[in-house]
């Protein structure tokens, strides 16, 4: 399934200027792997820690959550709290 992943603008330098990347994936884990396959430079930010917003719900670390073509998906820097 093709999903559209919105990147924060600081990542555009790593994707040749693309703000939205389309990849084939059905879970967050597959999505992250596919992002790196398509844009190897994204390995750095993903290793540093990312959260994923799926339809406004922020997945802080869950790699198993499903993603689909109908979802609004945003990659976010990993959240930290106090």
């Amino acid at each position, binding site marked *: 399934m093709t999903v559209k992943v919105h990147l924060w603008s600081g990542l555009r330098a790593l994707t040749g200027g693309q703000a939205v990347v389309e990849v084939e994936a059905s879970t967050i884990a597959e999505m992250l792997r596919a992002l790196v396959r398509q844009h190897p*430079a994204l390995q750095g*930010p993903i290793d*540093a820690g990312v959260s994923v917003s799926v339809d406004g*719900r922020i997945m*802080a670390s869950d790699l198993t959550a499903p993603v689909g073509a109908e979802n609004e998906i945003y990659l976010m820097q990993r959240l*930290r709290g106090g």
Partner: protein
Amino acid sequence: MALDDQKSVFKFVGTRPDRPDGLDKVTGRAKFGADVSAAGMLHGAILRSPYAHARIVKIDASKAEAHADVKAVVTRADFSDKVPFKPGLEGEFWNVLENVMAGDKALYDGHAVAAVAATSALAARDALKLIEVDYEVLPHVTEVDKAMATDAPVIREGAADYSVPEGMHPNVVRYHESGHGEVEAGFAEADLVVEDSFTTEATHQGYIEPHACLAQLGADGKGELWCTTQGHWIAQKTCAALLGIETAQLRVTASEIGGGFGGKTTVFIEPVALALSRKANRPVKIVMSRSEVFRATGPTSSASMDIKIGMKKDGTIIAAEGIFRLQGGAFPGAPGDMTAMCAFAPYNLTNVRQVGYDVMANRPKQAAYRAPGAPMGAFAVESVLDELCNQLGLDPVEVRLKNAAHDGSKASYGPTYDQIGLVKTLEEAKAHPHYAAPLKPGQGRGISCGFWFNHGGETSVSLALSEDGSAQLMVGTPDIGGSRASMALMAAEVLGIPYENIRVTVADTATLGYNDVSHGSRVTYASGLATIKAARHAVERLCARAAAKWGIPEDAVKWEDGCAVPSGPNAGDFDPLPLADITANMGATGGPISGHFEATPEGAGVSFGTHIVDAEVDPETGKTAITRYTVIQDAGKAIHPTYVEGQYQGGAAQGIGWALNEEYIYGEDGRLQNSIFLDYRIPVASDLPMIDTVIVEVPNPGHPFGVRGVGETGIVPPLAAIANAVSNAAGVRMRDLPMSPPRILAALKARDG
């Protein structure tokens, strides 16, 4: 979409029973970090650098080691050499190791360089004087803007991660940029653009209980650690890595905690005590002095910020831009990214751009402090909004309502908001008597909104029923804000037994699966969700026992008001079977009945608040009095409203300190000048008005009872709301925190030319 089984009518949730830890705390029976002792225990003390930046040429501990009272001396060589250095936050274990015991360089005033264990606390402190350290003093930098300048001394090469653009100083270690739309085009359409710069100083979380621990580690690699902490699993994991032992061989027990606010989410003295214990082969206790707490544990970041906002005459924000530079001490981790993402989050913006920098300087490693990074950004953004309202003659609440993010708005950090409560908090503010109350001459009123993400995190909970029908609930999140009461209320709601019949224990690391730290306002949300699920799991088992007793299928039994009952007329005619009647015979009907839940809940739900503040400035002394304060915040669902109100009031009180007086003051020599409470002024009762609270409840779709975290959002609006009140009272825009009397006098003098 809400969880299918979200509950909205409650029997126990929303009531205000007595706190379960109250008697222990008022009678002195509660055991805090420094209250634990062991037979044969030694006392540890830590030698700290007097320099802000220095190469450690040589450490000679021979005189200390020869002293009869000294049983062990440790330096960096006594910790694992297998902790890898990596850029940015990827090498966080290395960063923590380097922070708890310096390697080649002392990186800030107060940085640990060696430690001793001796037969008494006094002997340990005296023995520190016998350790000779040769330092080669290096140039230092403590201010964020100076640390980014071309000629700034480099703290550590190679610490910057992938995100930092080329050409930046090596002290800039992480960079964040996000937003949407076209800000320049937006500014061109604005009727008024205000651009301004702001600074905030580092403040400390100011918990009254200093860091304290008792550690025991044998040559076999097995250890015990008792400590005051917000997260004993992260303490276990970190200490094991830093000592080079297996995680499961170190059992960590969290003591009662005398405040944390984010500052106890990492380790400082614990690995040192373990290393001393391993070397001395005896238990070692370390208790920090207040001065050590200030010098060597995490304050917040300091910040330097530039804000530009364009507005139409009708109050519509047409474009917004913010640059946020956060100084986080001599290590990566300053939350410039969080500041950037939160700063404009309350508003529904077409054009927005935010940039955050994480900058190193010769100061202690910053630690989280309630909504880390968000209060500074809110201060800068909401100050500019206030200025726009003043210049355009607009009402500050109306303008915020006009621009407020609502369900379906695109957040400044990207995604579309689900169900959120900001508009409700603003409507409550507008309708509140405080907002309509007249001000006296010399007083000013300030408004601010605030946003925080909230968090879920790994969570593991276990609930065990007793034969008499009472219940024991084991959670893994230290109780920093009344969570034992909230957990008991949620369990009572599901089980249908009285709150008083449930005892909640913060279990040690050997008792439950991994639990994330008590941070991110996650406990009532995540441990609460896990408690509800664990209680439901126990209820399933209770229903199964009733079904077996009645000889009907398990799905023909349901749970109602503490009893198993037939699920419908076709299930059979049986009297309700109370919980205690089932547990009385559980040993003979299948064994003990428990419920468990382990997961990483991912529906924390973001949170918003709006604060109203009145302030009065004395033009002769520059002293500010906060004369009235109202906090309005969305709790989703308040499980124990008294604790929720306490969180709101606590956020406001700490915000008052941060806004008016608290600051880290460094001398030209890079040494901290005010490392005791006499010189670092936190608010006392006489500084504070009664802080009124309004609990808004817009249920979080991601929690069975609708809970949103409340612990952090309350500290986001105060800096801005107070600054706006003070600025309006003084007739001059206050751009730098704290707004201490000398700073206000200087501003008044500048205003009057």
